[in-house]
């Protein structure tokens, strides 16, 4: 218990913007706590229940280890094996990882995933910023209504989204009907069956789903930006665009980081949508790592290769989210 007051006391000056960067704050606090404990160990302070802090995190740590760390370790272990899921596995060394780099059918999914990130992360954040700044600037009537509508896709199960969009994108689906009705018959195509358009089509669904999340996050963020800043900007003669770049964008930095992290993770672990809409087709034009992991582990009995792919995906998510945390969230203000 004795650690708590010290941490709180020391964390306060750091937490000058507690509402802004809650995540990194906790991290820092944790780092601090650990350093305190370490320091006190060194000093050998008498009479203090030193390791008791670990006891508090133990239940959570056990669960975390049991359901996350152990499976992760198992996956890493499996990725070094050739295993069909049933008979005795044989050592593969780095074969599976070599395959990830050399085999086009394994490399392809990662490239598709990167393309999908444009639709899952970049586009929703851009659209979200646009909509949020519009909604907050012009005080649209019924903001709550719009917010709910935008957020709705997030509430739906991805399977439902997939089924709905599969029928919208079908050759005689809603989208083509709409195009036909406005005389754009030449643009109609079998969206999910077209080698060029299947990936963007699936990506567009992702944009539809993720934009709402971004809008809601950014709306909440803009409400936190002090009105005075806008007033000051306007006094200095800033137009809407200038205002956006000088006030709104920097003010939303933390929210953008959160939005990017969430959407990137959602984009990379995209499985259900592909499973429902295209099964990776046409050809392998829309296969993504998460789908390929499932496909290899359960359908073609290549558990080792699937595990290596899973590890690759984990690394990719890790690198990208850390990158976002460093570059976007970065040294805040």
């Amino acid at each position, binding site marked *: 218990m004795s650690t708590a007051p010290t941490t709180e006391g020391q964390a306060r000056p750091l937490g000058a913007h507690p509402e802004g960067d809650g995540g990194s704050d906790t991290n820092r606090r944790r*780092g601090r706590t650990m350093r305190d404990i370490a320091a006190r160990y060194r000093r050998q302070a008498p009479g203090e229940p030193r390791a008791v802090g670990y006891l508090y995190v133990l239940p959570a740590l056990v669960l975390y280890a049991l359901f996350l760390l152990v499976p992760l370790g*198992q996956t890493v272990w499996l990725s070094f094996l050739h295993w*069909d899921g049933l*008979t005795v596995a044989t050592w593969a060394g780095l074969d599976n990882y070599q395959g990830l780099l050399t085999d086009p059918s394994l490399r392809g999914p990662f490239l598709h995933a990167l393309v999908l990130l444009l639709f899952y992360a970049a586009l929703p954040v851009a659209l979200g910023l646009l909509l949020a700044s519009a909604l907050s600037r012009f005080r649209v009537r019924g903001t709550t209504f719009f917010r709910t509508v935008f957020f709705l896709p997030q509430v739906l199960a991805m399977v439902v989204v997939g089924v709905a969009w599969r029928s919208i994108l079908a050759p005689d689906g809603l989208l083509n009907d709409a195009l036909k009705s406005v005389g754009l018959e030449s643009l109609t195509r079998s969206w999910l069956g077209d080698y060029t358009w299947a990936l963007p089509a699936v990506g567009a669904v992702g944009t539809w789903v993720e934009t709402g999340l971004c809008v809601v996050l950014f709306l909440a963020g803009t409400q936190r930006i002090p009105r005075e800043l806008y007033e000051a900007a306007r006094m200095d003669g800033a137009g809407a665009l200038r205002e956006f770049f000088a006030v709104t964008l920097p003010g939303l930095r933390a929210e953008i980081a959160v939005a990017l992290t969430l959407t990137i993770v959602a984009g990379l672990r995209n499985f259900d949508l592909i499973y429902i809409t295209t099964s990776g087709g046409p050809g392998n034009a829309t296969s993504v790592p998460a789908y390929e992991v499932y496909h290899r582990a359960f359908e073609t009995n290549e558990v080792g290769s699937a595990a290596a792919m899973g590890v690759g995906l984990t690394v990719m998510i890790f690198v990208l989210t850390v990158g976002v945390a460093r570059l976007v969230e970065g040294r805040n203000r």
Partner: protein
Amino acid sequence: MRSASTRGTDRRPAAARRRTAPLVLALGTALLAAACVPGTDGSAASGAGVPGAAASSVPDPAKAGKATLTVWDQEVRGGQNDELERLNAEFEKKYPNVRIKRVARSFSDLKTTLKLAISGNKPPDVIQANQGYPDMVAFVKAGLLSPLDNYAGIYAWNTRYPATLLNLNRVSVDGRDFGTGRLYGISQTGEYIGVYYNKDVLEKAGVEPPGTWKELTDALPKLKDEDQLPVQFGNLDKYPAIHTFGVLQNQAGGAEETRESVFGRGDGFDTDPTREAARTLAEWKERGFIPKGANGTGYDDAAKKFADGKGAFLITGTWQLPDLKKSMGDSLGFMPPPPAKEGAAPVTTGGQGLAWSVTSKSRHPQVAAAYLDFITNKHAADVMTEEGVLPAVPGKAADEVPEGTVDGQMIDGWRQLNADDGLVPYLDYTTPTFYDSLSADLQGVIDGKTSPDELATAMQRSYSDFQDKQRAEGKKKP
């Protein structure tokens, strides 16, 4: 503001280091915890050790004491579900000491969970195993299934089923080859790819139901001219094209070669029939005989559209019949793909439903064998017919189905195919990854992206790579 930022920078490396240390530690521990080679060595399957393999007389489940038979199957669709529920109830009534615990899952759910279930310590007693390398052969290799040759003798399954069908459920003792060796399952139902036709649409266009393959192909442009879609087809799910392609390949004269190659005894697929079938498929797309958006239409959606009168023909399996019949009634007709000459023996892709197998760790192998016999015998065949399902071996009830009805046409076709040995196994049985590569390539053929030559080369490469691997593995073993 500034102080926070400077502090932030100078703290970072230390914090980062400290953050990685526990991570590495945790990963290490997790790795250690997981570090054991998974899998079984297949020793459980060594012939004589299997209880029940030694059975020499007809097992009597009544003498088995209180027994619970756990059955995992995927017969969740209408008629198949009804038929199996009826048979299960009858079995329990006949042997009150036996309780059947049925776990019914959809095909893909079963496929993903079965492997874990049967490699555990308390596997189900009876399972439905999908024929081919990824499932049935893999199970046998791991020693998870019990050979049934003994029971095949006792229950006369060897004579009940045509050899072609029985062979599809055979795997070699070493778990390497498929289609030969020991019997590891028997199937309840038969299935084949045939041609459904909409009598109303044909009549409107003035086309007679075709008696030969040429009549069928000649009808396509005629239907097109009459503004009817000649062949309904949806290939978003990737697999339907394998069936259509199989039929086209058989028609192009590739049936015999395919049959040999699927079982690894042929020269492969770099053949003229393969090319011709691919050309036909691409041509059908180009000339609008199949829908423009075929690759973007779901299989079920296509069937629904056909039922709604969009399309004169639909080339798919007998499993669609109950559903189509329900919505189309008398306007639905069905036939095996018509032969080259009127009245000649038909040839088509087909086989049988998933195999019913007994797991090697089952505690009641004799009861399980009796159950297998019960759900596939003459009486079971009649129950299946009554529920609109095609039994692998049609019984008395099938004779009473009036000729000319769509069920009658289906049963008739099945009998003919079996009598003339006209069944060609599914192409995707060929190698463990054949389904993947072929289904992806066929989408390319339909799109015009993959040429017939490229398809033939890709199929051949997949085939010979696998054969080389099989041979290398065979040499390694003493």
